[in-house]
Each structure stands twice: as structure tokens, then as C-alpha cells.
């Protein structure tokens, strides 16, 4: 729309779309910079002079123009990609310069807008004369600029500028006012609630039934809900005019929004008299419209206007919801360009065709990583399912399937069956949503490099690049299928170092720490010396397939997973894993917990014993080796010393020292032996669950530990196989001296008998201190003998202990909290049904943090 004012309007308004590339056009001295300063924020304006200065230290160095414009286009691109209005302050009088800018605008799918300052030569000359750096600019330069400008004026729209504003006099420039306009697709201010309705294809009767089921009475919802149609209202079905009438009146009354489908688009072209093929059900519509002509001759025209006015997609509910016909990648949300419209209407194809001769659609939803939910239709599927926060609502009503609606923000699906097969499909409905589930891996961009993970409980947590690299190797080469790996357990900090004689760790500090944090009740749980195991148990293979998408067709496939703290399969033998899962499943069933939790899967955290089962290699190469070497050397050494002493040689305190060392070494061997025993198959294997992490739709990480333990006791009680082992516990009141003493005694007694130690946890599980910070979810207090395995046989000698007390816990504690927050995040994302990549992101981050350098003895 060229606006050329001839009269003397008091105010000239220049509409500018709020996300666009504004290109100022004018000769040197025409006042572009002044204009830009007056109407736009300084940061919105990029001037070619400034860019020349950046690359050449001289704003007027014309030899630097090429590089300067490279920089200008680069900056403009960055701003537009981020969705920021951008103004280019350069003469832009040459078509080539403008062509490049239009290309930049198209690349970022924003509108290019031209503002032309076509001021008289004398004005330009006078302005330049006032500027010391331009005072000697020859007149012919300005003349050339103006010549080129005038030649360009007519063609600006053809060049691609969607709005062209031309100002001819100083007065016009002074009176001009830039007014920002919202994009047509930007309806973020509308918050609904909405009912998004899938493809209709002339199924009038089903539409009425569906609207009725959704609660609409005569096109109006008594609770003020808004219907949103994803397009493809027409073609193929029995009553396209009826559907159009209904939708058009709802839209006109403000009770509905509608985006166009490819079928509306084609119908629109037909109605405009363009030559289109009457295929894919358009013939039926045309015929129905012809019948309509007699009753309502104006109807055709109203339909044409309606279709003409449709906006290809909408961004709704504060940016949380995007509705369009064929789906839309995130970078196109709220953008305006031909290809955005085309994608919204038709989607993207791979260029291949399938065996039915139909184009193969590019599975854009698999790549989708946006935070906004994208609701669309277009591709008929037998069942709707969320993929990466996108959902296709076309359930093939016209082909005898169903008509489906999505309630927003409730995310509830409502559907009605088709009354009959109205139209035979060319090919059977694909069995899955676009892309399908099988073998759909995560993308490397979801995990690689430095990352920031947003967590609910601890804000933004960083993962360093080198840690992500290490985690990538372990995750790729050793971990179980990420779909079955919804959680990794956090590391746990030990208690503050004890000053108690003979002890490096003692419960007093742990109780004291929680008391100081304002935690009144803690639970002490026996620490089982085994290996950490996380178990995902589904009711059956079908449930695993349904929720986690694993396994092949039919009932085959795993019924869950049993994995270690770095995500490796715990047992090499998958049949044995299934046996463990089977026993857990039987216990859950017998305890009636499926019903109580209303779930068909459960994720639990446990310790699997014996330690030697998984750590056998380490035990033999490291711990047993120390025992073997010391066992071989000491008898010889002490024997030789005794012989020397017997001969009367003064060997001093050396004999005693060697004897003590021999005893320490023997104690070390005893310490590790307690956690080793032989197993055969599952004989001798025990599993001690200590927390139910999540069930369908719920993270249970914040359920208090007494409730947790009650569930777990029931599980153990209902396990006839002897696999499950109970976790002994004691609740301690941190403010009550007697209770604290009882806790200490309990620990002393347990570790005195060779126990590994205990973990002290706030009874309330997920707890914050007075300042609102997360407190440690657990603190381990390890037994004196057990710590020999960690700190070496001789660590208890007083001078050794003194040196070891200098240990630094800060990093370990910080790591424990960060991993805890990431673990909680993974569980919350899992519970909320977020896409796999979101869950995996948090899980991967836990693994990455585990590779941070920290004293492994802590």
C-alpha cells in the first residue's frame, strides 16, 4: 500500500509491523539518521556509517563498504532471529542494496518495510554542509543518489517491500509518526480457554455432536470458551457448506478462531475463478455449493471473503499455544513470510513419495524443541499422541475415524466417532503420528556442548562442555535406551568431618546440620553396602510400550529396566533383568499398589547386593589385591624382625609398628569381605528399595520418608521370592538430646557389627531451610571399619586421621544438591508428560556432573 500524501494532513501515521525489517531509503543528507533517532530506540537502528567505523575506523571510508554491509547484515540477522524490530539506516538507493536486505528479512521470515525520505536536493546539500565530515561532499553525489532513488520508487513493492511509506517534504517528515502494529498471527493476549478442533472435511453432523460434547450451545460456550479450528473444514464430506456456515458464524461472533487448511486455500482459489483441479474431494464441495446458490446466492462470496481473511497460524495464550493446519517449527512461530504460510498450510515434504504416490512428509515434529505447544491437523492418524509438545488432531473423521478436539489449557482430548465412512482413503491411516515412534532417537543438539538446564527447584544449572563430552561417551556406549532411563540418582555428600577421637565420620554432625537448617525430624536409614540400582517396572510389556515407546509390535519387548547410577544395564543378562522386574512386579501387585498409585508403571531407587555382584572387577583388581599383597608381605617382615630382635639386635618400635600395620591390613580385608558373597543367577542377590520415585503422572520425590517406607515395607512383605530386603530405620528428633543419643547409639551398634553406616534424611524428603534454600536430601554417615575400604587400611592411626580431617566437602555438597535438583527436574518432566528430550536433558546433565572432579572418597 503506497501512501503518498498530497494534502497537508496534520499527522501522518506510518504503520510499522512490530517485528519487521525497516529499511530507510534516502540520499545522503536526507535526514535518515535523525528520523531513525526520533522514532526508534537507538539499539534498534543499525547504520552503515557505524558499521564502516567498526571495520575501518572511519565512518566515511567507502572502500570499506562491502565489509561494513556484511557486518550490518550479520547484526540485522541476529536481531531478527531473536525477534527484534530492526531499522537499517543506509542510503539504500541502489536496488542491489535493497535486494540484499529483502533477502535478510525473508531469511528470518519477517516483513521488509520501506520508509523513503525523498527530500529536495537543496535540503540534502544544506544538511551535509552542516556536518564537518561531509561538508565537502560534492553535489553530484547527492544528485546521483536522488536519481537512483527516483528510479526505484515505483518498483519497491515488486522488490518485496510489504509496506512502503514515502515522505517528500521536511514538513511531512516532521509530522510523521511511526505506529507499531501487532502481527495478525499474534494473539498472545487471548488466553482462552480454548477447544482446538481437528480436521472436519464437511462432516457437519459429527461437528455438531463434538461441539455439543464440548458444551457449546448453538455455537456459544456458556463458560466463554473459544473454539479454534485447525482448518480443512471442507471437501470430501457430505456437507461442507453447513460446516462453513457454522464456523463462519462462530468466528464472526467472536466465539471461534480459524486457521486455513490446504483445502480452504484451494477452495479460495477456485472461488476466485482460478483454474484448479477438482480432486481430493473438491468436486463434492463445488457440487454442494452449487446447490446452495439457489437458497443463498451471496453465500459463495461470503465464503470467499472468509477464506481470504484467514491468517495462516495463531500464537495464543501468552505464547504457550500455537495453532495451525500442518504444523510449524519454532523458528516460524509468529513470523510472516510466504514459506511460513506454506509450511502452515502444507507442512514440509522430503521430496520422496510413498508407495501410494503421496508425498512423504518431513517429520518436523521430531525435531521440534519449542516450549510452545503446537496443535495441528492435516495428517490423518488413528490415534493422537504428543510428540515433543506437538499434537496432531486429525483423526480422519471423514474416513470413518473420529473427530477430535483438545481442551486447552487442560490438555484433555475429547472425540466423537464418525457416523460412517464418508470418503474412502487413498491409503490406510498411518499407524503412528508423523515420524512414528520406532527408532526415533534423540538429537545430538539436545545434549552436546555447554548447556544450561532450567530446573524448578534450583534455577539454571550449567553443564560444562568437557563433562557433557564424557557423559556422551558413557551414555552412547553403555547406557540403556534413554526412553527407559528417565532418572539418574544424585551423588550424596558425607557428614561434616568429626573431631571425635578415632572417627572421621560420626552421626552427631549430621544431626547438628539438620537441626541448624531447622529440620526437626530426620530419619536414619540403614545403608546397604551394595550398588545403586534404579528399577523401572511396568505392569507388562504393553504398558512399557504405551508409556515409554519401547519394544516391537505385539507383546514383545522389555517390561522395564534395571540400571546403575551411570545408566548401564545392571545385569548383562536381559532375561535375568526381566526376572528381577517380574519379582518386583509381583510384589507391587500383591501389595495392591498399582491401584493405590493408579499407575501401570513405577520407578524406584534401590541398593542391589552384594557389592561383589557388580563391583567384582574392581574388588579383585584393587581391594582384594591390597589384601593379598599385605597378607603376603607382613608375615615375612614381622618374622624377620622377630628373628633379628631374638638375636639381640635393637629393632626398636619397628616390630610393634609392623604388627599394628599387619592388623590394620587384616581389618581392611575383613571390611571388604563383608560385602562380598557368591551368587548364582539370582540366588544370593538382594534388592533393598528405599524410595518410590515416580508413578504415572506423579513424581513421588517429595513424599515424606515415613510414607515412603510404609509403601516399601508393604512391597517387601508381599515379596515371596526373598529378593527384596527391608531397610531398617530410626526417626530422630534433632532437638531432643535423648533422641539424638539414641540415633548415635543405633549407628554405633550397627557399624560395630560391620554395617556400612546410615543415611540421615529430612523426614519431609524435599525440604528447604529458613532462607528458602534446598537442604541436602540425605547425608551419609559411614562406619569406622567401612571407611578403611575408602581411606586405606591405616587411616585410623591418629596422625593419619588428623591429616584426613582436612578434607574439603564444599564441592561435593554443591554437586549433591545440583544433581538432586536435576534428578527432581527429570522426575517432574516425566510426570508432566514432557517430551523425551526434555527428560533426557536433565538425566544427561546428572551424568555429566558426575564427571566433575571431586574427591572420590567423599
Amino acid at each position, binding site marked *: 500500500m503506497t501512501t503518498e500524501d498530497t494534502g497537508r494532513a496534520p499527522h501522518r501515521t506510518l504503520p510499522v509491523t512490530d517485528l519487521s525489517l525497516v529499511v530507510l531509503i534516502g540520499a545522503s543528507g536526507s535526514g535518515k539518521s535523525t528520523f531513525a533517532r526520533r522514532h526508534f530506540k537507538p539499539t534498534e537502528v543499525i547504520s552503515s556509517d557505524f558499521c564502516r567505523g567498526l571495520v575501518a575506523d572511519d565512518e566515511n571510508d567507502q572502500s570499506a563498504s562491502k565489509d561494513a554491509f556484511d557486518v550490518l547484515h550479520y547484526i540485522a540477522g541476529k536481531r531478527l532471529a531473536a525477534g527484534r524490530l530492526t531499522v537499517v539506516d543506509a542510503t539504500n538507493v541502489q536496488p542491489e542494496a535493497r535486494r540484499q536486505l529483502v533477502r535478510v528479512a525473508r531469511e528470518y521470515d519477517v516483513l521488509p518495510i520501506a520508509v523513503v525520505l525523498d527530500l529536495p536536493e537543496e535540503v540534502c546539500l544544506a544538511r551535509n554542509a552542516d556536518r564537518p565530515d561531509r561538508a565537502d561532499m560534492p553535489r553530484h553525489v547527492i544528485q546521483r543518489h536522488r536519481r537512483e532513488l527516483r528510479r526505484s520508487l515505483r518498483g519497491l513493492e515488486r522488490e518485496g517491500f510489504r509496506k512502503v511509506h514515502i515522505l517528500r517534504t521536511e514538513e511531512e517528515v516532521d509530522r510523521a509518526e511511526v505506529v507499531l502494529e501487532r502481527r495478525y498471527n499474534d494473539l498472545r493476549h487471548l488466553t482462552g480457554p480454548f477447544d482446538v478442533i481437528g480436521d472436519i472435511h464437511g462432516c457437519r453432523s459429527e461437528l455438531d455432536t463434538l461441539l455439543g460434547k464440548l458444551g457449546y450451545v448453538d455455537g456459544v460456550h456458556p463458560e466463554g470458551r473459544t473454539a479454534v479450528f485447525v482448518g480443512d473444514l471442507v471437501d470430501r464430506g457430505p456437507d461442507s457448506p453447513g460446516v462453513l456456515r457454522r464456523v463462519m458464524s462462530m468466528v464472526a461472533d467472536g466465539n471461534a478462531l480459524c486457521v486455513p487448511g490446504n483445502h480452504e486455500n484451494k477452495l479460495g482459489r477456485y472461488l476466485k475463478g482460478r483454474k484448479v483441479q477438482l480432486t481430493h474431494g473438491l468436486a463434492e464441495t463445488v457440487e454442494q455449493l452449487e446447490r446452495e446458490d439457489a437458497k443463498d446466492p451471496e453465500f459463495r462470496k461470503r465464503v470467499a471473503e472468509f477464506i481470504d481473511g484467514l491468517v495462516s497460524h495463531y500464537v495464543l495464550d501468552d505464547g504457550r499455544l500455537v495453532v495451525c493446519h500442518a504444523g510449524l517449527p519454532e523458528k516460524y512461530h509468529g513470523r510472516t513470510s510466504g514459506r511460513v504460510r506454506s509450511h502452515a498450510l502444507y507442512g514440509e515434504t522430503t*521430496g520422496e513419495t510413498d508407495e501410494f504416490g503421496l508425498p512423504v512428509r518431513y517429520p518436523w515434529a521430531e525435531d521440534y524443541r519449542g516450549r510452545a505447544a503446537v496443535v495441528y491437523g492435516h495428517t490423518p492418524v488413528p490415534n493422537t499422541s504428543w510428540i515433543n509438545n506437538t499434537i496432531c488432531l486429525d483423526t480422519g473423521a471423514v474416513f470413518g475415524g473420529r473427530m477430535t478436539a483438545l481442551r486447552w489449557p487442560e490438555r484433555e482430548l475429547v472425540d466423537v466417532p464418525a457416523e460412517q465412512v464418508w470418503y474412502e482413503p487413498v491409503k490406510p491411516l498411518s499407524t503412528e503420528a508423523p515420524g512414528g515412534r520406532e527408532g526415533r532417537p534423540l538429537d545430538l543438539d539436545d545434549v*552436546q556442548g555447554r548447556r544450561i538446564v532450567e530446573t524448578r527447584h534450583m534455577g539454571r544449572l550449567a553443564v560444562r562442555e568437557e563433562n557433557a563430552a564424557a*557423559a556422551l561417551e*558413557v551414555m552412547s556406549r*553403555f547406557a540403556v*535406551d534413554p526412553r527407559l532411563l528417565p532418572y539418574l540418582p544424585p551423588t550424596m555428600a558425607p557428614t561434616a568431618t568429626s573431631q571425635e577421637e578415632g572417627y572421621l565420620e560420626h552421626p552427631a554432625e549430621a544431626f547438628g546440620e539438620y537441626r541448624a537448617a531447622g529440620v526437626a525430624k530426620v530419619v536414619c536409614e540403614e545403608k546397604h553396602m551394595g550398588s545403586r540400582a534404579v528399577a523401572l517396572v511396568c505392569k507388562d510389556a504393553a504398558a512399557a510400550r504405551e508409556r515409554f515407546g519401547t519394544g516391537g509390535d505385539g507383546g514383545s519387548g522389555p517390561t522395564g529396566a534395571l540400571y546403575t547410577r551411570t545408566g548401564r544395564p545392571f545385569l548383562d543378562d536381559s532375561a535375568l533383568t526381566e526376572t528381577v522386574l517380574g519379582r518386583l512386579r509381583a510384589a507391587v501387585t500383591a501389595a495392591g499398589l498399582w491401584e493405590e498409585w493408579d499407575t501401570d508403571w513405577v520407578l524406584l531407587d534401590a541398593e542391589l547386593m552384594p557389592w561383589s555382584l557388580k563391583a567384582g572387577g574392581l574388588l579383585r583388581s584393587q581391594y582384594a589385591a*591390597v589384601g593379598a599383597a*599385605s597378607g603376603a608381605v607382613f608375615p615375612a617382615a614381622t618374622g624377620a624382625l622377630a628373628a633379628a630382635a631374638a638375636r639381640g639386635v635393637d629393632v626398636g618400635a619397628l616390630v610393634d609398628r609392623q604388627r599394628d600395620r599387619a592388623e590394620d591390613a587384616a581389618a581392611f580385608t575383613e571390611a571388604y569381605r563383608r560385602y562380598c558373597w557368591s551368587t548364582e543367577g539370582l540366588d544370593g542377590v538382594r534388592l533393598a528399595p528405599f524410595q518410590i520415585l515416580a508413578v504415572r503422572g506423579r513424581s513421588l520425590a517429595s513424599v515424606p520418608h515415613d510414607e515412603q517406607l510404609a509403601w516399601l515395607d508393604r512391597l517387601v512383605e508381599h515379596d515371596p521370592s526373598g529378593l527384596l530386603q527391608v531397610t531398617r530405620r530410626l526417626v530422630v528428633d534433632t532437638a531432643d538430646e535423648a533422641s539424638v543419643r539414641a540415633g548415635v547409639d543405633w549407628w554405633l551398634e550397627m557399624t560395630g557389627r560391620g554395617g556400612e553406616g546410615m543415611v540421615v534424611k529430612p523426614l519431609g524428603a524435599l525440604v528447604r531451610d529458613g532462607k528458602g534454600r534446598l537442604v541436602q536430601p540425605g547425608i551419609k554417615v559411614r562406619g569406622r571399619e567401612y571407611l578403611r575400604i575408602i581411606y*586405606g587400611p591405616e587411616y585410623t592411626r591418629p596422625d593419619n586421621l588428623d591429616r584426613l580431617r582436612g578434607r574439603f566437602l564444599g564441592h561435593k555438597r554443591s554437586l549433591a544438591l545440583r544433581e538432586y535438583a536435576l534428578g527432581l527436574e527429570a522426575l517432574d518432566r516425566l510426570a508432566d508428560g514432557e517430551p523425551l528430550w526434555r527428560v533426557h536433558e536433565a538425566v544427561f546433565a546428572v551424568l555429566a556432573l558426575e564427571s566433575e572432579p571431586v574427591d572420590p572418597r567423599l
Partner: protein
Amino acid sequence: MFLTISTTGTPERPATDLGFLLHKHPERAQAFSTSHGTAHVFYPEASAEQCTAALLLEVDPIALVRKGKGKGRGGAPDAALAQYVNDRPYAASSLLSVAMSTVFKSALSGACKAMPERAAAPMELRIEVPALPARGGAELVRKLFGPLGWTRVEAEAVPLDVKFPEWGDSRYVRLVLEGELRLADALRQLYVLLPVLDDAKHYWVAPDEVDKLLRAGEGWLAEHPEHKLITSRYLARRWGLTRQAMERLELVRLAEADDLDVESVDNAVDEGSDTEERPVPLAVRRRDAILAALTAAGAGRVLDLGCGQGQLVQALLKDPRFTEIVGLDVSMRALTIASRRLKLDRMGERQAARVTLRQGSLTYTDKRLKGYDAAVLSEVIEHLDPERLPALEFAVFGSARPRTVLVTTPNVEYNVRWESLPAGHTRHGDHRFEWTRAEFRAWADAVAARHGYGVEYVPVGPDDPEVGPPTQMATFSLSTATTDETEKEAKAA
């Protein structure tokens, strides 16, 4: 850490002369401070007939670990020192060698002012080391000491834990040597062979170590049938030690977090075999087969997915027809070695522009892998658990979709032809499976069908009439039907 040296004598040549030769008085217990603890020398027996000197090194375990840590954990020369709990205070290692060189300095050099003729002459010796770590076991101990003039070399394996006999023997042996040797020779042998058997050093191996070895090995090393092994172990694969250790750090931590040996995680690079199994020609033949197939397919831009140490990338670089070569591996360590092999940092600009090495994973899709002519997965799929193969399949055939895909994998049927391979063992510790020809074809045929590729099979190596070739290769080509359609589609659009 303990060893004894005994000798026998007669009233004319009393055994207690040992005290003169060692420069340590038999009636006194003496203590010497060394950098890692106190060395004690005393004599449990000292008569004219029988004299035994004992060397006991008391190590401070906490200080030992701290010293290791000071150099950067994992950067410490001896991997055992990186472990907080280790056998170093007990097992006879380079620590004991160093203590010997300090305490018995003169004896080692063969100098003895009091009785030079005795020092220069062989004598009846019995040496006992109760806990000698021996990587290579008793057999290697006998191989190393056997040719050195001892009449008796006894190496008795120490069990790992008597309570768990199923764990078998430890890597320690009780060593007893008997024979008539010069004392200095015996000490020098021990000085060299203790750390060699341990296969580790507690200190950085500097260039002067070569001189030390030559000095201590004078007169016996050069003719020793195992001198190659002794030299290489003594000098402890010095090159790049620091860098390797630093790269391993992160993986070490992940292994520890899961109570695993680091070797069980960090095994992408097989240093022992340089990823070229013996006989070497098979690896060469495999590369030749791959190069031939790539050339036949007319591929210019090639992905080496799972490039390992970069041998194939190196071969591809030599042929200018390959204009762009991307080596991808999930192991940063493998990539570093590959980069060193290719001398990437010193490569000319034009040559360097042809090659990229980067970390990536085939269980994730990767946009940067799209649009290549060919992808090679040479000995890669068998390193993935079978459950993860669908992810790899999608990443390569579904997402990256190069025109040509070459996949090689061992043919397990051929394993019976490997003499050195025990029955039922895979060819590499990290192989998750090895397929028969039928299994490989079943997989490849299904993959090809699912993703619109045609597939052909090529034997690599001698094609045994009974068990087939050692390596099987599948050449996948994107079906022409599909590409035709693509062109049609492109024209229509």
C-alpha cells in the same frame, strides 16, 4: 615392602661378609630416610654359616596418595597411585628399587674397599621377595630371571583372597631366587626388574631414565631374550603420558561413580593392539575394500562414523577424490589420538580443509551428518548393545541418509579359524555381539528395506568355503527408484 638377601659361608669365608658387601653392619638395625618413607636394614640371622639381610621400606600411605594428587590425579605416573587405596605400601615396586639404590648404592656399583675380591666374585645367594607384583604372572617372572644365571627361580602365585577361592590368584608372586651370582649383578637385576614386572613407576620417566637402564643393565640386558619387553616396560610408554592421563580424567570419575574399573569404561582405544588385530593384513584388506567401494560409488564427501584412531581417515586423505572427510567418534580419547596420527595441527591449509574430526554419537540424530555421499561404519555396530541398534539405524539411514553406506563387522563363523582366540570369545573385549553371515544379512536386509536402500555383500579377507571371510561388508545404496522420485518431485516443485 620387603625383601631379603641371604648367603651361606664357611668359617674361612663367613656368610657375614655380606655385611661388608652391603656396607651395613649385621649387628645393627639401621634406618634411612627416602623420599617416600623410611628404609630399614637389619639382619634376622647373621652367622658364619648363614647370613640374611632384610630391607624393609615403611611407606606413609597418606603422604604417598597426596604426592600422587599433587601431580594431578591420573597424571601421576603410576595409575595405582591415583587410587586412594592401593597396594603400594606392600608390594615390591619401583619404590623399593629406589630405596635399594639409596641404601645399597655402593653394593649396586660393585664397590667394596674392604674386600674387593669378594665383591667381584660370584657367591651363593638366596633372594626372597614375598610380595612381588608381576604383570604377566609367574611365567614372565621365570622368563625374566631364568636367563640370568640363577639355579632356582621360584615364583609362587599368591591367591587373591583365600576366602573366595573362585577369584583365583592375585598378580603377586612370592619370588625366590637361588644361585651363584655377583651380589652387584643380583641387585642390579632386581633394581631393573622389580618395576618392569610391576609394569609401573611411581615417578615421571625422564630422559635420564634411559641412562639409568643402560647402567643397571650393563652386562646382562643386551643379551637378554626379553630385552625388548624390559626396555619398553622400564621406560613406561613415556610419550604423551601427561596428555593421555589428563584426557582420561573425566572418564575415570564416571567409572568410579559406578564402582567400575576405568578400563571398563575407557576401552574405546585398544592401546595394546592399536585397533589392528593380528594378522595385520586383515585391517589393510578391510581398508582396501572400503576404499574400492567408495571409489566405485563415486563418493567425494565421506563420513567415517566411528573413526577410532583415524587409520581410515588417513587413507582417505591420500586420495584427492575424497574432497571432504569427516571422522566422527564418541571417544574424545580416540579423537585426540587420531588428530595426533594425522598431525592435524601441522597440516597444510588446503589439506586440513578436507578433514574434520569431531565428537558425535550414532545413538543420537545429528543434523550435521546430512547430505554426504557416503558413510562408513567400519567395525562399529558390534560395539553397540543390540537394543541400541535401532537408534543407530535411524540416525544413519533415517536421518543422515547418505547415498552410500558401508558397514563392516566381524563374521563370527570365522572365529574358529583364529588360532589365538579361545572358543566362545569375541575378538575384542568390547564387542557386544558378533554375527554370523546369516544374522548380518537379516539385519542389513531389513534395514535396507525399511529405509529404501539396496544392499550388496562383499567378503573381506580370505573367503573360507566353510566359514566365510573374517570380515563381512554390506554396501547399502539409496534406491534409484527413490532418487528418481526425488528428482521428479524437485522438478514438480
